[in-house]
């Protein structure tokens, strides 16, 4: 127990990294996932095929592989430098990997949401003279989002826990700090595990509650 108390500051700093990694990747995934969804229903067959291929690959590749690829492949081998500071560089590489992976799931969730929107909504929009992009942006996607708030919440929770795999890119998030502490405080392994597990529960539990509440509040009455 004392290890957790004496290291409180470094643990919080590590969890802060987890939160940042989650927040930025979540935003990126939402944007890329929305774009992919739009591509998958686009009138152009090439756009649909590209998005479908991307989602299929990203969704069926283990996240560890994706992050190793961004870290070793894109980072080390291809030499993509997003910052002079190595820690910042690794952070952004991890964000790219997490976003690339999670956006595929966001796309699938949104697409199932689109399927809940009656076809008449899009027909009414088109009959007013709205084009494809505006119909999607103003009418169908907003309703799709509202239909999948709860699944998006689950994805956010999964993403939060998935950030622990960013350790393969060398980002010092919570699970890295945990490993270091286990090496230093070998006599308190169980406490350290439980402490970090509790930390993740504390992070994720409010998300679940918030998204459950949001999904009820935002549901579209038909």
């Amino acid at each position, binding site marked *: 127990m004392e290890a957790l108390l004496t290291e409180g500051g470094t643990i919080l700093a590590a969890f802060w990294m987890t939160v940042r990694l989650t927040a930025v990747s979540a935003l990126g995934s939402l944007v890329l996932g929305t774009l992919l969804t739009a591509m998958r229903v686009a*009138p152009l067959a090439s756009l649909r095929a590209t998005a479908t291929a991307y989602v299929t690959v990203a969704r069926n590749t283990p996240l560890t592989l994706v992050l190793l690829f961004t870290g070793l492949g894109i980072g080390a081998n291809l030499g993509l430098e997003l910052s002079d500071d190595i820690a910042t560089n690794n952070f952004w590489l991890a964000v790219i990997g997490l976003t690339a992976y999670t956006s595929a799931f966001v796309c699938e969730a949104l697409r199932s949401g689109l399927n809940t929107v*009656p076809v008449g*909504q899009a027909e*009414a929009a088109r009959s*007013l*003279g709205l084009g494809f992009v505006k119909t999607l942006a103003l009418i169908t996607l907003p309703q799709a989002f509202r239909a999948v708030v709860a699944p998006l919440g689950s994805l956010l929770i999964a993403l939060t826990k998935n950030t622990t795999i960013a350790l393969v890119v060398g980002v010092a998030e919570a699970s890295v700090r945990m490993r270091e502490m286990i090496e230093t405080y070998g006599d308190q392994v169980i406490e350290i595990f439980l402490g970090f597990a509790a930390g993740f529960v504390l992070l994720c539990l409010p998300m679940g509650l918030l998204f459950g509440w949001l999904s009820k509040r935002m549901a579209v009455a*038909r």
Partner: protein
Amino acid sequence: MTQADLIVLDQVNKRFGDHHVLRDVNLSVRQGEVVVVIGPSGAGKSTLCRAINRLETIDSGTISLDGTPLPAEGKELARLRAEVGMVFQSFNLFAHKTVLDNVVLGQVHVLKRSKDAAVRKARELLDRVGIGGQAGKFPAQLSGGQQQRVAIARALAMDPKAILFDEPTSALDPEMVNEVLEVMTALAREGMTMVVVTHEMGFARRAADRVVFMADGEIVEQNVPDAFFGAPSSDRAQSFLAKILTH
């Protein structure tokens, strides 16, 4: 084709697989004319109505609006669609928008009107169809008849050259049919060009300039209401009318 023909269908054909839903359909609707399309279910009435707004594609033939043939895709199609209002059987009000926003949206995003002007126009139209007091509500909070009147206001807000009605009262409870028909009758009197697919024979008699009778994808006969209902010339129309007017 005369100068005042607003909607012209020329040799329009459409198939759904083996089913030939529109067969060599020729139809011209003049400016200000109210055309009511009737016929047994499966006759292709709704398909005809939807094809004019290109919500259904056609296999051959042309459909022209105000002299311009409907293009297949793109901005030009969107522009022509904006000029023709559409009222659906299932209302199709935007479920996540308030009644007011439903009527404002197209004005702002398609016609590029200012928000203020669009809201003013929307309120005026909602008052005209008798829904002024419900502007802040969501569609699901309204009765079917009220929703359909909002849908008519939404179509009118675009200052359309014509409005298509695809069985506008078929999904309504009987006591709500009249409130919608009254709004439509008023529109017809004001000179709006209308194509109305309906089973409401009373409306057809009262408001139509011309009744078009369809069966099996073809226009079988067309005439002014009195002549059509009084003395239908085709066997199909006679038997159809006998079935629906005997009770």
